[in-house]
């Protein structure tokens, strides 16, 4: 096939195809931004240590996260994490109109195209759309850079608008994303290109999901909880013969710890996401058994029929919630520290001074929360795409139902049931797991547990070295474990926000119901 023909066929499509391409472009553009921003943060040069600046801080910024070299890695990582929900959004938009496109590609196969040609076609569509997106993203980044470049009176910057990542790094983002997207398309199309008849009949009846995801979550939490023991075990065992110098040993230990944390977190998040499938199956069965009315029946059957749909739909949302709940645990710990610090300061006679670090940590947490909220919003957009796609795919059946006199409100109610029944428990689980993780990390604030000399006499006697000893006692300061409170309020807020986001998107999605239940839908096949 000549490239021109390929391009022509790749661009032929219906309105849904156009919508999908637009969404792909948009999400690619959106994903480019955090990627480039993260690169920018990493590109900030670390000045050599001077007497004025022993910590090698980059004093040209106002935000501590950018100033300290040690924090920049984390910041960049957090920014990259923001790209994850965007990528999930991209994945969800790729599913939009997928049945229609699959049919079109299957038709091309019937017309004699080879599987390779069809795959190339779809890859071309996704790749080109993403490329346009990343280029737009790059342009947006460059323009934004210029617009946001506002040094304050002392010449300091809020954002690192004075540095630019290296050209190869930028090129890697702009060209790499479309390549990854195209490769993902090729993987997803394996089934379609295998048979020219496409997937016509849907007679899938997979077995009921089993509660294995719970095991995964447990494993994750356990892994994170095991870090301390693991690290200690490494330190205690006589492994010195393995490592020449203690620095290598510490590095290995740190690496192992990071690996364990990563595996644990990953297992936890995947467990929560897969758990949503099990939850929706279970919710569907409960609904089927106890709920009355056709709306609940429809929702129940749909949930049990394809429980993994919930996993796909809520993946980004649940992942953001896990992070959000973990952050809430961190914040609770920082708040506790701050409170203890204040108490100590008060006891020591100072004013209510909490120290500079506490405010730094808390403001960092504000940034993290902002990221989580953004992620939830993006996840909600992805939810909307999936929801609308579900309605569009079922429009024939819906139109037939409306024609036979099923009120649209019944269908709308069934869709709400279908979304909320798994969403609410899954959100709760995600919050619980996220908080559990966070709690494991931050641990408890322990005071006391050590011995202290206390002079029990008047100030004069204690001042005098001669008499002091007589009155001095060694006192065991009681070991007090201050556990950070479970930040119920924040968790509730987070959960409520997520459920509200789900509700809003469901409401928006239902706006498409009317258009998709018109009788005309019955005519088109």
């Amino acid at each position, binding site marked *: 096939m000549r490239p021109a023909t390929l391009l022509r066929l790749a661009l032929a499509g219906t309105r849904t195809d156009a919508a999908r391409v637009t969404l792909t472009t948009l999400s690619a553009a959106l994903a480019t931004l955090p990627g480039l921003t993260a690169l920018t943060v990493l590109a900030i040069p670390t000045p050599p240590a001077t007497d004025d600046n022993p910590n090698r801080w980059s004093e040209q910024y106002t935000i501590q996260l950018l100033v300290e070299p040690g924090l920049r890695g984390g910041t960049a990582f957090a920014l990259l994490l923001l790209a994850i929900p965007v990528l999930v959004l991209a994945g969800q938009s790729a599913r939009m109109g997928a049945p229609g496109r699959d049919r079109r590609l299957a038709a091309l196969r019937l017309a004699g195209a080879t599987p390779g040609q069809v795959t190339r076609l779809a890859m071309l569509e996704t790749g080109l759309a993403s490329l346009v997106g990343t280029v737009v993203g790059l342009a947006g980044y460059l323009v934004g850079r210029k617009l946001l470049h506002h040094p304050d009176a002392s010449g300091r910057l809020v954002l690192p608008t004075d540095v630019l990542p290296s050209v190869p790094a930028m090129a890697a983002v702009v060209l790499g994303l479309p390549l990854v997207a195209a490769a993902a398309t090729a993987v997803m199309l394996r089934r379609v290109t295998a048979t020219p008849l496409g997937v016509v009949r*849907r007679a899938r009846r997979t077995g009921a999901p089993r509660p294995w995801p719970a095991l995964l979550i447990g494993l994750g939490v356990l892994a994170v909880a095991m870090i301390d023991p693991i690290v200690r075990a490494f330190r205690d065992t006589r492994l010195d013969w393995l490592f020449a110098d203690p620095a290598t040993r510490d590095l290995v230990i740190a690496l192992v710890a990071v690996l364990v944390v990563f595996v644990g977190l990953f297992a936890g998040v995947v467990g929560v996401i897969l758990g949503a499938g099990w939850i929706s199956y279970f919710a569907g069965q409960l609904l089927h058994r106890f709920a009355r009315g056709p709306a609940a029946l429809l929702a129940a059957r749909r949930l049990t*029929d394809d429980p993994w749909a919930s996993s796909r739909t809520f993946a980004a949302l649940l992942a953001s919630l896990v992070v959000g709940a973990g952050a809430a645990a961190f914040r609770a710990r920082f708040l506790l520290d701050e409170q203890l610090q204040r108490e100590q300061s008060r006891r020591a006679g100072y004013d209510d001074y909490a120290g500079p670090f506490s405010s730094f940590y808390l403001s960092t947490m504000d940034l993290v929360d902002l990221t989580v909220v953004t992620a939830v919003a993006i996840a909600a957009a992805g939810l909307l795409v999936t929801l609308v796609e579900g309605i569009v795919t*079922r429009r024939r*059946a819906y139109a*037939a139902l*409306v024609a*036979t006199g*099923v009120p649209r409100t*019944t269908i709308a109610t069934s869709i709400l049931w279908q979304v909320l029944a798994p969403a609410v428990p899954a959100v709760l689980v995600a919050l619980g797991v996220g908080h559990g993780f966070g709690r494991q990390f931050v641990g408890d604030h322990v005071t006391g547990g050590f011995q202290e000399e206390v002079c029990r006499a008047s100030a004069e006697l204690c001042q005098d070295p001669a008499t002091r000893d007589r009155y001095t006692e060694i006192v065991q300061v009681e070991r007090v474990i201050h556990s950070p409170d479970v930040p119920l309020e924040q968790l509730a807020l987070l959960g409520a926000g997520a459920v509200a986001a789900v509700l809003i998107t469901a409401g928006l999605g239902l706006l498409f119901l009317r258009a998709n239940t018109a009788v005309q839908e*019955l005519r088109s096949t």
Partner: protein
Amino acid sequence: MTHLQARGVVKAYGPTPALRGVTLDVAEGEIVAVSGPSGCGKSTLLHCLAGILRPDVGEVSWRGDRIDTWSESARSRLRRTEFGVLFQFGQLVAELTAAENVALPLLLAGTGRRAARTAAVNWLDRFGVAELADVRPGEMSGGQQQRCATARALVTEPRVLFADEPTGALDTLTGEQVLTQLVRLAREQRTTVVLVTHEPRVAAYADREVVLRDGMVDHTGLGFEASLGGGVR
């Protein structure tokens, strides 16, 4: 009082007129075939008569009440209780079993789950597909699906059944079996049937045939004489 009546019904989709003034009376218990070439407005007429679409001009009345002026929810209720609707294909909910699909209208009417299921299985049995009660549409043949759909359309014992090319997607023999059962049950229950088809052979199941051409009753065809023959006017 007439049973079901259309008076000068005009309906257009954008600039294309689908119906250009159709007048038709259907008597109680009558089986009327609406036939004509593709694009003559058959389906649109059916949708107007069934209260799915609202005519641009003209009246549609059911037992003397003008249903074209009713609200969507009122017409919805009418379709649910007094009418049954049957399409060519694709009307069953893929995720529900046959029995649940058939029970759906009853559940909407507030019947209990158990009673609805019993009635649904009973109706499936009348169409000879009782053994499919717990099977989903995706696992059935086209004829089986259409039998379930017919059972669903009749489960509420409607007064009028609207069928739009009900055998269009079936082979001759299967279509014939579905139609024979449908007509037999309709006559048993004195259900009025409005049957849209382009096939003379299917139209022959009706008591009377109304031919549409270009959105109008074709007076050179059978429509004119036949509607006089129906003895309503």
